[in-house]
Protein backbone atom coordinates (compact mmCIF):
# COMPACT_ATOMS: atom_id res chain seq x y z
CA UNK A 1 0.00 0.00 0.00
CA UNK A 2 2.85 2.43 0.76
CA UNK A 3 4.20 1.83 -2.76
CA UNK A 4 2.28 4.99 -3.71
CA UNK A 5 4.36 7.09 -1.27
CA UNK A 6 7.49 5.38 -2.52
CA UNK A 7 6.60 6.15 -6.15
CA UNK A 8 5.99 9.77 -5.11
CA UNK A 9 9.36 9.73 -3.38
CA UNK A 10 10.96 8.59 -6.63
CA UNK A 11 9.36 11.46 -8.55
CA UNK A 12 10.51 13.98 -5.91
CA UNK A 13 14.01 12.57 -6.10
CA UNK A 14 13.97 12.84 -9.91
CA UNK A 15 12.78 16.45 -9.71
CA UNK A 16 15.58 17.33 -7.29
CA UNK A 17 18.08 15.62 -9.56
CA UNK A 18 16.65 17.43 -12.61
CA UNK A 19 17.51 20.74 -10.95
CA UNK A 20 20.93 19.63 -9.78
CA UNK A 21 21.99 17.82 -12.94
CA UNK A 22 20.21 19.93 -15.54
CA UNK A 23 17.85 17.61 -17.35
CA UNK A 24 14.18 17.96 -18.18
CA UNK A 25 12.94 14.48 -19.00
CA UNK A 26 13.56 11.03 -17.62
CA UNK A 27 13.18 8.29 -20.23
CA UNK A 28 14.26 5.30 -18.24
CA UNK A 29 15.24 4.65 -14.66
CA UNK A 30 16.78 1.74 -12.80
CA UNK A 31 15.73 1.01 -9.25
CA UNK A 32 17.50 -1.42 -6.95
CA UNK A 33 15.01 -3.21 -4.72
CA UNK A 34 15.99 -5.86 -2.19
CA UNK A 35 13.69 -8.73 -1.19
CA UNK A 36 13.51 -7.29 2.36
CA UNK A 37 12.65 -3.71 1.35
CA UNK A 38 8.93 -4.16 2.16
CA UNK A 39 8.11 -3.31 -1.44
CA UNK A 40 5.94 -5.19 -3.87
CA UNK A 41 7.60 -4.52 -7.21
CA UNK A 42 4.46 -5.07 -9.33
CA UNK A 43 2.58 -2.63 -7.15
CA UNK A 44 5.45 -0.16 -7.39
CA UNK A 45 5.34 -0.36 -11.21
CA UNK A 46 1.61 0.33 -11.15
CA UNK A 47 1.94 3.26 -8.73
CA UNK A 48 4.87 4.74 -10.60
CA UNK A 49 2.89 4.78 -13.82
CA UNK A 50 0.05 6.56 -12.03
CA UNK A 51 2.09 9.24 -10.22
CA UNK A 52 4.50 9.93 -13.10
CA UNK A 53 1.71 11.33 -15.27
CA UNK A 54 2.23 15.04 -16.04
CA UNK A 55 5.71 14.95 -14.52
CA UNK A 56 9.21 14.88 -16.00
CA UNK A 57 9.04 11.08 -15.86
CA UNK A 58 5.79 10.62 -17.78
CA UNK A 59 5.94 7.40 -19.80
CA UNK A 60 9.41 6.61 -18.45
CA UNK A 61 10.38 2.95 -18.36
CA UNK A 62 10.92 1.68 -14.82
CA UNK A 63 13.46 -1.13 -14.63
CA UNK A 64 13.66 -2.93 -11.32
CA UNK A 65 16.92 -4.65 -10.40
CA UNK A 66 16.23 -7.19 -7.68
CA UNK A 67 19.25 -7.38 -5.39
CA UNK A 68 19.91 -10.58 -3.41
CA UNK A 69 19.20 -10.92 0.31
CA UNK A 70 22.19 -11.87 2.44
CA UNK A 71 22.52 -12.69 6.11
CA UNK A 72 25.26 -13.71 8.55
CA UNK A 73 24.52 -16.97 10.33
CA UNK A 74 25.71 -16.70 13.94
CA UNK A 75 25.88 -20.50 14.21
CA UNK A 76 27.82 -21.28 11.03
CA UNK A 77 29.74 -17.98 11.09
CA UNK A 78 29.22 -17.68 7.40
CA UNK A 79 27.27 -15.61 4.89
CA UNK A 80 24.07 -17.16 3.51
CA UNK A 81 21.40 -16.17 1.00
CA UNK A 82 17.86 -15.40 2.23
CA UNK A 83 14.58 -14.46 0.57
CA UNK A 84 12.59 -13.43 3.65
CA UNK A 85 13.19 -12.14 7.15
CA UNK A 86 12.16 -15.40 8.77
CA UNK A 87 14.20 -17.71 6.57
CA UNK A 88 16.29 -20.26 8.40
CA UNK A 89 19.98 -20.75 7.63
CA UNK A 90 20.03 -23.07 4.60
CA UNK A 91 22.98 -24.96 6.13
CA UNK A 92 22.20 -25.40 9.85
CA UNK A 93 18.50 -24.50 10.04
CA UNK A 94 19.04 -21.87 12.75
CA UNK A 95 17.05 -18.63 12.80
CA UNK A 96 19.92 -16.72 14.40
CA UNK A 97 20.59 -14.71 11.28
CA UNK A 98 21.67 -11.11 10.98
CA UNK A 99 20.59 -9.47 7.76
CA UNK A 100 23.51 -7.92 5.88
CA UNK A 101 21.89 -6.99 2.60
CA UNK A 102 18.46 -7.05 1.01
CA UNK A 103 16.65 -3.95 2.24
CA UNK A 104 17.95 -1.70 -0.54
CA UNK A 105 15.50 0.70 -2.08
CA UNK A 106 17.36 3.15 -4.26
CA UNK A 107 17.40 4.87 -7.61
CA UNK A 108 20.57 3.67 -9.28
CA UNK A 109 20.71 5.23 -12.70
CA UNK A 110 18.70 7.38 -15.11
CA UNK A 111 18.52 7.83 -18.85
CA UNK A 112 17.61 11.47 -19.39
CA UNK A 113 17.11 14.13 -22.00
Amino acid at each position, binding site marked *: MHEMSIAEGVIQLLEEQALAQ*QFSRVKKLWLEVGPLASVDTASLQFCFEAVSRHTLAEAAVLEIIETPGLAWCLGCETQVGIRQRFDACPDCGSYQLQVIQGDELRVKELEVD
Partner: protein
Amino acid sequence: MCSVCGCAEGETRIEGVDHHQGHHHHHEHEQPHLHFGQGAARAHVPGLTQQRMVQIEQDILGKNDRYAQQNREEFARRSLFALNLVSSPGSGKTSLLTRTLKELKERFPVAVIEGDQQTSNDADRIRETGAQAVQINTGKGCHLDAHMVGHALEQLDALRGGVLFIENVGNLVCPAAFDLGEAHKVAILSVTEGEDKPIKYPDMFHAADLLLLNKVDLLPHLNFDVEACIDYARRVKPDIQVIQVSAQTGEGMQEWLEWLLAGRSGLIHQRLQELEQEAQALQTLL
Protein backbone atom coordinates in the same frame (compact mmCIF):
# COMPACT_ATOMS: atom_id res chain seq x y z
CA MET B 1 4.23 24.32 -1.87
CA CYS B 2 5.48 25.07 1.63
CA SER B 3 8.62 27.20 1.38
CA VAL B 4 9.99 26.08 4.74
CA CYS B 5 10.10 22.34 4.31
CA GLY B 6 8.87 21.80 0.77
CA CYS B 7 5.75 19.90 1.74
CA ALA B 8 2.84 19.99 -0.68
CA GLU B 9 -0.75 20.20 0.41
CA GLY B 10 -2.85 17.07 0.07
CA GLU B 11 -4.72 14.55 2.10
CA THR B 12 -2.89 14.74 5.39
CA ARG B 13 -4.19 16.82 8.25
CA ILE B 14 -2.60 17.55 11.61
CA GLU B 15 -4.49 19.18 14.43
CA GLY B 16 -3.53 22.63 15.55
CA VAL B 17 -1.25 24.97 13.76
CA ASP B 18 -1.87 26.73 10.52
CA HIS B 19 1.69 25.82 9.69
CA HIS B 20 3.04 28.28 7.12
CA GLN B 21 1.32 30.89 5.01
CA GLY B 22 0.23 29.61 1.64
CA HIS B 23 -0.60 26.26 3.13
CA HIS B 24 -4.09 24.94 3.29
CA HIS B 25 -3.71 23.66 6.82
CA HIS B 26 -6.79 24.63 8.75
CA HIS B 27 -8.26 24.51 12.20
CA GLU B 28 -10.89 21.86 12.57
CA HIS B 29 -10.98 21.69 16.33
CA GLU B 30 -9.80 23.65 19.32
CA GLN B 31 -7.19 20.95 19.82
CA PRO B 32 -4.01 20.78 17.75
CA HIS B 33 -4.75 19.06 14.44
CA LEU B 34 -2.55 19.74 11.41
CA HIS B 35 -3.35 19.12 7.78
CA PHE B 36 -0.73 18.79 5.14
CA GLY B 37 0.23 16.70 2.31
CA GLN B 38 2.16 14.60 0.08
CA GLY B 39 2.55 14.28 -3.63
CA ALA B 40 5.16 15.25 -6.10
CA ALA B 41 6.11 18.85 -6.64
CA ARG B 42 5.44 19.59 -10.28
CA ALA B 43 8.59 21.45 -11.13
CA HIS B 44 9.72 21.26 -14.71
CA VAL B 45 13.19 22.43 -15.33
CA PRO B 46 14.60 23.55 -18.63
CA GLY B 47 17.86 21.80 -19.15
CA LEU B 48 20.09 20.09 -21.62
CA THR B 49 18.27 18.26 -24.35
CA GLN B 50 20.72 15.57 -25.32
CA GLN B 51 20.08 12.12 -24.02
CA ARG B 52 22.50 10.96 -21.34
CA MET B 53 22.88 8.62 -18.43
CA VAL B 54 22.95 9.89 -14.87
CA GLN B 55 24.24 7.80 -12.00
CA ILE B 56 22.49 8.81 -8.82
CA GLU B 57 22.53 5.90 -6.36
CA GLN B 58 20.11 7.57 -3.98
CA ASP B 59 17.90 5.99 -1.38
CA ILE B 60 14.26 6.59 -2.17
CA LEU B 61 13.46 6.90 1.51
CA GLY B 62 16.44 9.24 1.98
CA LYS B 63 14.19 12.25 2.34
CA ASN B 64 12.15 10.58 5.07
CA ASP B 65 15.38 9.49 6.74
CA ARG B 66 16.63 13.08 6.76
CA TYR B 67 13.44 14.27 8.45
CA ALA B 68 13.75 11.35 10.89
CA GLN B 69 17.27 12.47 11.76
CA GLN B 70 15.99 15.99 12.46
CA ASN B 71 13.32 14.54 14.74
CA ARG B 72 15.91 12.38 16.48
CA GLU B 73 18.07 15.46 17.15
CA GLU B 74 15.04 17.34 18.46
CA PHE B 75 14.12 14.41 20.75
CA ALA B 76 17.70 14.39 22.07
CA ARG B 77 17.74 18.16 22.56
CA ARG B 78 14.55 17.92 24.61
CA SER B 79 15.58 14.67 26.38
CA LEU B 80 12.45 12.99 25.11
CA PHE B 81 12.16 9.22 25.04
CA ALA B 82 10.14 8.69 21.85
CA LEU B 83 8.45 5.40 20.99
CA ASN B 84 6.73 4.45 17.75
CA LEU B 85 3.83 2.12 18.58
CA VAL B 86 2.88 -0.11 15.67
CA SER B 87 0.19 -2.77 15.38
CA SER B 88 -2.80 -3.91 13.38
CA PRO B 89 -6.10 -2.10 13.99
CA GLY B 90 -7.86 -3.36 17.12
CA SER B 91 -4.81 -4.68 18.98
CA GLY B 92 -5.68 -2.51 21.96
CA LYS B 93 -2.97 0.11 21.43
CA THR B 94 -5.06 3.03 22.62
CA SER B 95 -6.39 1.21 25.72
CA LEU B 96 -2.89 0.14 26.63
CA LEU B 97 -1.70 3.67 26.08
CA THR B 98 -4.39 5.33 28.22
CA ARG B 99 -3.58 2.94 31.08
CA THR B 100 0.14 3.62 30.67
CA LEU B 101 -0.40 7.38 30.61
CA LYS B 102 -2.42 7.28 33.84
CA GLU B 103 0.52 5.53 35.52
CA LEU B 104 3.18 7.86 34.14
CA LYS B 105 1.67 11.31 34.04
CA GLU B 106 2.21 12.01 37.74
CA ARG B 107 5.91 11.20 37.42
CA PHE B 108 7.01 13.12 34.32
CA PRO B 109 5.63 14.82 31.19
CA VAL B 110 3.95 12.52 28.69
CA ALA B 111 2.35 13.24 25.33
CA VAL B 112 0.96 11.34 22.38
CA ILE B 113 1.04 11.87 18.64
CA GLU B 114 -1.92 9.93 17.26
CA GLY B 115 -1.98 8.71 13.67
CA ASP B 116 -5.22 7.59 12.05
CA GLN B 117 -6.67 7.85 8.58
CA GLN B 118 -9.62 9.84 9.87
CA THR B 119 -11.26 11.13 13.10
CA SER B 120 -9.74 12.46 16.30
CA ASN B 121 -11.44 9.80 18.44
CA ASP B 122 -8.16 8.36 19.69
CA ALA B 123 -6.67 11.74 20.56
CA ASP B 124 -9.89 12.53 22.45
CA ARG B 125 -9.51 9.30 24.45
CA ILE B 126 -5.90 10.21 25.25
CA ARG B 127 -6.85 13.74 26.36
CA GLU B 128 -9.38 12.27 28.81
CA THR B 129 -6.37 10.94 30.76
CA GLY B 130 -5.07 14.50 31.07
CA ALA B 131 -2.14 13.90 28.72
CA GLN B 132 -1.45 16.17 25.76
CA ALA B 133 -2.26 14.70 22.35
CA VAL B 134 -1.89 15.78 18.73
CA GLN B 135 -3.95 14.00 16.12
CA ILE B 136 -2.55 13.45 12.63
CA ASN B 137 -5.05 12.33 10.02
CA THR B 138 -3.23 10.80 7.09
CA GLY B 139 -6.20 10.94 4.72
CA LYS B 140 -5.43 8.28 2.14
CA GLY B 141 -2.03 7.61 3.70
CA CYS B 142 -1.35 4.23 5.28
CA HIS B 143 1.48 5.27 7.62
CA LEU B 144 3.01 8.23 9.46
CA ASP B 145 6.17 9.66 7.98
CA ALA B 146 8.93 11.62 9.69
CA HIS B 147 7.85 14.88 8.11
CA MET B 148 4.34 14.70 9.61
CA VAL B 149 5.79 13.84 13.01
CA GLY B 150 8.18 16.81 12.83
CA HIS B 151 5.23 19.16 12.39
CA ALA B 152 3.22 17.45 15.12
CA LEU B 153 6.21 17.90 17.42
CA GLU B 154 6.01 21.67 16.85
CA GLN B 155 2.62 21.47 18.57
CA LEU B 156 4.23 19.99 21.67
CA ASP B 157 6.86 22.68 22.06
CA ALA B 158 6.80 22.70 25.86
CA LEU B 159 7.36 18.96 26.16
CA ARG B 160 10.75 18.17 27.75
CA GLY B 161 12.32 15.27 29.61
CA GLY B 162 9.42 12.87 29.36
CA VAL B 163 8.03 10.18 27.13
CA LEU B 164 6.46 10.78 23.74
CA PHE B 165 4.32 7.99 22.34
CA ILE B 166 3.71 8.05 18.61
CA GLU B 167 0.71 5.83 17.91
CA ASN B 168 1.10 4.89 14.27
CA VAL B 169 -1.71 4.07 11.85
CA GLY B 170 -3.04 0.57 12.54
CA ASN B 171 -1.21 -1.33 9.80
CA LEU B 172 1.39 -4.09 10.07
CA VAL B 173 2.97 -3.41 6.68
CA CYS B 174 3.77 0.16 5.68
CA PRO B 175 4.86 1.84 8.94
CA ALA B 176 7.81 -0.60 9.09
CA ALA B 177 9.56 1.23 6.28
CA PHE B 178 9.33 4.74 7.74
CA ASP B 179 11.75 5.82 10.45
CA LEU B 180 10.18 8.61 12.52
CA GLY B 181 13.29 9.30 14.59
CA GLU B 182 12.02 7.23 17.53
CA ALA B 183 14.24 5.46 20.08
CA HIS B 184 12.37 2.18 19.52
CA LYS B 185 9.52 0.73 17.56
CA VAL B 186 7.21 -1.19 19.89
CA ALA B 187 4.94 -3.75 18.22
CA ILE B 188 1.66 -4.56 19.92
CA LEU B 189 0.06 -7.87 19.08
CA SER B 190 -3.11 -9.06 20.78
CA VAL B 191 -3.76 -12.72 21.49
CA THR B 192 -7.06 -12.51 19.60
CA GLU B 193 -4.95 -12.30 16.44
CA GLY B 194 -3.01 -15.27 15.06
CA GLU B 195 0.22 -16.37 16.74
CA ASP B 196 1.85 -16.44 13.29
CA LYS B 197 1.48 -12.67 12.76
CA PRO B 198 5.24 -12.14 13.25
CA ILE B 199 6.05 -14.31 10.23
CA LYS B 200 3.07 -13.08 8.21
CA TYR B 201 4.27 -9.49 8.67
CA PRO B 202 8.01 -10.02 9.21
CA ASP B 203 9.15 -6.52 8.28
CA MET B 204 7.24 -4.96 11.14
CA PHE B 205 8.36 -7.44 13.78
CA HIS B 206 11.92 -7.17 12.49
CA ALA B 207 11.81 -3.40 12.89
CA ALA B 208 10.50 -3.59 16.48
CA ASP B 209 12.72 -3.85 19.57
CA LEU B 210 9.90 -4.75 21.93
CA LEU B 211 6.81 -6.90 21.43
CA LEU B 212 3.90 -6.28 23.77
CA LEU B 213 1.63 -9.29 23.69
CA ASN B 214 -1.66 -7.70 24.70
CA LYS B 215 -5.03 -9.00 26.00
CA VAL B 216 -3.38 -11.97 27.77
CA ASP B 217 -6.37 -12.05 30.17
CA LEU B 218 -8.27 -13.66 27.25
CA LEU B 219 -5.80 -16.54 26.86
CA PRO B 220 -7.96 -19.08 28.77
CA HIS B 221 -10.70 -18.63 26.14
CA LEU B 222 -8.47 -18.91 23.08
CA ASN B 223 -6.25 -21.37 21.25
CA PHE B 224 -3.34 -18.98 21.10
CA ASP B 225 0.09 -20.56 21.47
CA VAL B 226 2.20 -17.95 23.30
CA GLU B 227 5.44 -19.92 22.99
CA ALA B 228 4.98 -20.37 19.24
CA CYS B 229 4.25 -16.66 18.84
CA ILE B 230 7.43 -15.67 20.68
CA ASP B 231 9.39 -18.24 18.68
CA TYR B 232 8.06 -16.75 15.41
CA ALA B 233 8.92 -13.24 16.58
CA ARG B 234 12.50 -14.34 17.39
CA ARG B 235 12.85 -15.89 13.94
CA VAL B 236 12.44 -12.47 12.37
CA LYS B 237 14.19 -10.58 15.18
CA PRO B 238 16.42 -12.80 17.32
CA ASP B 239 16.89 -10.24 20.11
CA ILE B 240 13.32 -8.90 20.34
CA GLN B 241 12.11 -8.43 23.94
CA VAL B 242 8.63 -9.70 24.77
CA ILE B 243 6.33 -8.54 27.57
CA GLN B 244 2.91 -10.12 28.10
CA VAL B 245 0.36 -7.53 29.18
CA SER B 246 -3.32 -6.93 29.69
CA ALA B 247 -4.56 -3.36 29.51
CA GLN B 248 -7.78 -4.70 31.03
CA THR B 249 -6.49 -6.40 34.20
CA GLY B 250 -3.12 -4.65 34.50
CA GLU B 251 -1.17 -7.90 34.21
CA GLY B 252 2.39 -7.24 33.00
CA MET B 253 1.95 -3.47 33.27
CA GLN B 254 4.67 -3.26 35.92
CA GLU B 255 7.21 -4.91 33.63
CA TRP B 256 6.25 -2.61 30.74
CA LEU B 257 6.50 0.48 32.95
CA GLU B 258 9.93 -0.65 34.18
CA TRP B 259 11.06 -1.05 30.56
CA LEU B 260 9.86 2.50 29.85
CA LEU B 261 11.50 3.96 32.95
CA ALA B 262 14.81 2.23 32.20
CA GLY B 263 14.75 3.50 28.60
CA ARG B 264 13.97 7.02 29.71
CA SER B 265 16.69 7.14 32.36
CA GLY B 266 19.19 5.66 29.91
CA LEU B 267 18.41 8.46 27.48
CA ILE B 268 18.69 11.17 30.15
CA HIS B 269 22.01 9.76 31.42
CA GLN B 270 23.35 9.80 27.88
CA ARG B 271 22.17 13.37 27.36
CA LEU B 272 23.71 14.42 30.64
CA GLN B 273 27.02 12.89 29.66
CA GLU B 274 26.99 14.71 26.32
CA LEU B 275 26.21 18.03 28.00
CA GLU B 276 28.93 17.50 30.61
CA GLN B 277 31.45 16.85 27.84
CA GLU B 278 30.26 19.94 26.05
CA ALA B 279 30.53 22.00 29.25
CA GLN B 280 34.05 20.70 29.83
CA ALA B 281 35.02 21.60 26.28
CA LEU B 282 33.65 25.12 26.86
CA GLN B 283 35.60 25.42 30.15
CA THR B 284 38.83 24.87 28.30
CA LEU B 285 38.03 27.86 26.10
CA LEU B 286 38.03 30.24 29.08
